[in-house]
């Protein structure tokens, strides 16, 4: 009886973890540039709602994906205008984006509540499907976003740690003064990181509405944005470790759903608490050490040459 549970949880972990991973990767890029976006939840909602609305209106989930990515990017650029151009407090700006996301997503999504869409197509390579323990389960039957999740994580890692651009972005997050002294423009690098991060966030939201649930509901992200922020800390701002984190929390969610589906006695509410409590516990257990891994200038604003 445990094997189906295990494979069910694993499959669920990967499915659930996809949007978490994209959100975490996006936020990692942004935080490496020294900016915290507490309104990530809002970006996810914008992605989910615009993606769903586009898919419902045009019948194309791919178009929905594209629009979601663009909306996420634009939303993050709006956030960037506040915290970089206007040097506003990052925390308050993040919450402003949160409210913006709540409101915009409601406005965009409400007309399409209940709409039926064809989600992103799922696909599984034939040789994998032929394996005995794979066929008959949902394992490895994934949409494009899930298949691309690992490559995207590697891409983000490579960009941050193997390119001149990434070196500059990380320098801005550690010491904007040093980045500036080296001839770079911290603001431009931050906007670039924000754009990329926003696109990833939009994709994260879109995965929820276009693949996982094929619906739209207000507040459907249920705090995933905040869990992603915690995951960034958990993975020490490293894109590859984020994969492990996303799997772990995707698994927590999946476990909870599987248990509910199997009719356990435990109240569904207690089960639903599990991911949030797990997040806190994990941060607690490794929190102290992780503080040192944070980009040194995270959360601050830079004021040109002193």
């Amino acid at each position, binding site marked *: 009886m445990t094997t189906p549970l295990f494979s069910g949880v694993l499959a669920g972990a990967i499915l659930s973890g996809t949007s978490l991973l994209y959100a975490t990767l996006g936020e990692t890029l942004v935080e490496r540039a020294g900016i915290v976006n507490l309104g990530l939840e809002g970006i996810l909602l914008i992605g989910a709602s615009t993606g769903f609305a586009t898919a419902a209106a045009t019948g194309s989930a791919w178009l929905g994906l594209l629009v979601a990515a663009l909306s996420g990017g634009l939303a993050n650029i709006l956030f960037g205008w506040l915290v970089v151009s206007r040097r506003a407090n*990052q*925390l*308050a700006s993040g919450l*402003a984006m949160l409210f913006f996301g709540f*409101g915009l997503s409601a*406005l965009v999504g409400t007309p399409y509540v209940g709409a039926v869409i064809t989600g992103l197509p799922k696909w599984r390579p034939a040789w994998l499907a032929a394996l005995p323990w794979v066929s008959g389960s949902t394992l490895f039957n994934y949409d494009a976003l899930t298949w691309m999740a690992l490559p995207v994580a590697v891409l983000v890692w490579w960009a941050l740690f193997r390119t001149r651009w990434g070196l500059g972005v990380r320098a801005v997050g550690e010491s904007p003064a040093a980045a500036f002294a080296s001839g770079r423009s911290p603001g431009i690098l931050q906007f670039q990181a924000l754009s990329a991060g926003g696109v990833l966030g939009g994709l994260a939201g879109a995965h929820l509405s276009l693949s996982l649930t094929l619906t739209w509901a207000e507040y459907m992200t249920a705090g995933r944005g905040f869990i992603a*922020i915690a995951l960034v800390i958990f993975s020490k701002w490293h894109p590859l470790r984020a994969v492990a984190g996303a799997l772990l929390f995707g698994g927590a969610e999946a476990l909870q759903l599987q248990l509910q589906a199997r009719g356990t006695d435990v109240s569904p509410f207690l089960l639903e608490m599990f991911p949030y409590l797990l997040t*806190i516990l994990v941060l607690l257990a490794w929190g*102290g050490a992780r503080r040192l891994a944070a980009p040194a200038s995270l959360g601050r604003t830079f004021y040109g040459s002193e």
Partner: protein
Amino acid sequence: MAETGRLSALGSAPPVRAALRYGAITAVALAAFAMVLLLAGKDPLRAYADTFSYTLANAYGFSELLVRMTPLLLTAVAVALPSRLGLINVGGEGQLYMGAWLASAGALMFPGLPRWQLLPLVALLGFIGGAVWAAIPGVLRAARLVNETIATLLLNYVAPLIVSYFIFGPWRDVRGSAYPQSSAFSEAARLPSFFDTRVHGGLLIALAALLAYWLIMEKTRWGVDMRAIGGNPEAARRLGLPVAAWIVIALAIGGGFAGLAGMGEAMGIHGRLRQGLSPGYGFTGFLIAWLAGGRPLGILFMAFLFAIITSAGDTLQITQGLPYSAINLLLAMILFIVLARRPRKAGR
């Protein structure tokens, strides 16, 4: 994550000028929101007129504003007090629910007590419920394990689940309909209301809390200590202040105020414990405190303003078919305008 000092949006202008500035900002935001309404196919003039007539133009509408203000004042103080130490409490939602929960526990366990005993007990429990819920992140922060912003945020999602568990489980209303709620509280546990409106004793508690906040911060030595920690925690530590203890205490007191808000909603409005007690009062309280710069008069003013705005949300849902959540766009716009003002000199 970086420490933020005192919340401050609009600097230290004298009250009249600050009020005018807030007014101007609101006007601009209303204009921007009007455009959003137009894009959504709604009539902004009609919307604003409806809002006015439902809220300010008649006595009952005005009383409803006071009803909304009550929890907002408390959740704003819940943010403002810890913010003076540089702590960020975005857990007002969760603390509110836990306050409601513990207060309900008291009401359901001692229904027979006379009102003069039960009400204070229930209020105390409401405070304690929120205080403990906020003390948990406080301890984590004081021990430098977890940033309190994240901890309070995550606990926001746990508290309503606890409430739901009890509503669907041990406290389920056996007499009632299928509607998920607890059994009704005895009359003794209900906060008294005024003049046939829904305005309840919680308003007095909220105003008292605002006053207490001001007194503590400005007139006591504890306020000096707390402000010192907010101004320079390193120096405060070196001067012998027990910073870790203060972190926990400040968050606990803040959480207690939010808990009182929850108690107020449960005991004053609903008369029982329900899901959905708070349409985001915790977050709205944060915004109020931030916009007001942590100042009591500003909190009063902003709470009133936000009460009008959230009323508008309900009104527009009814009259124009706009989803309630869309009103968040207006809030966001107000914030954008405030945030986008002339870049400040100070840091974070």
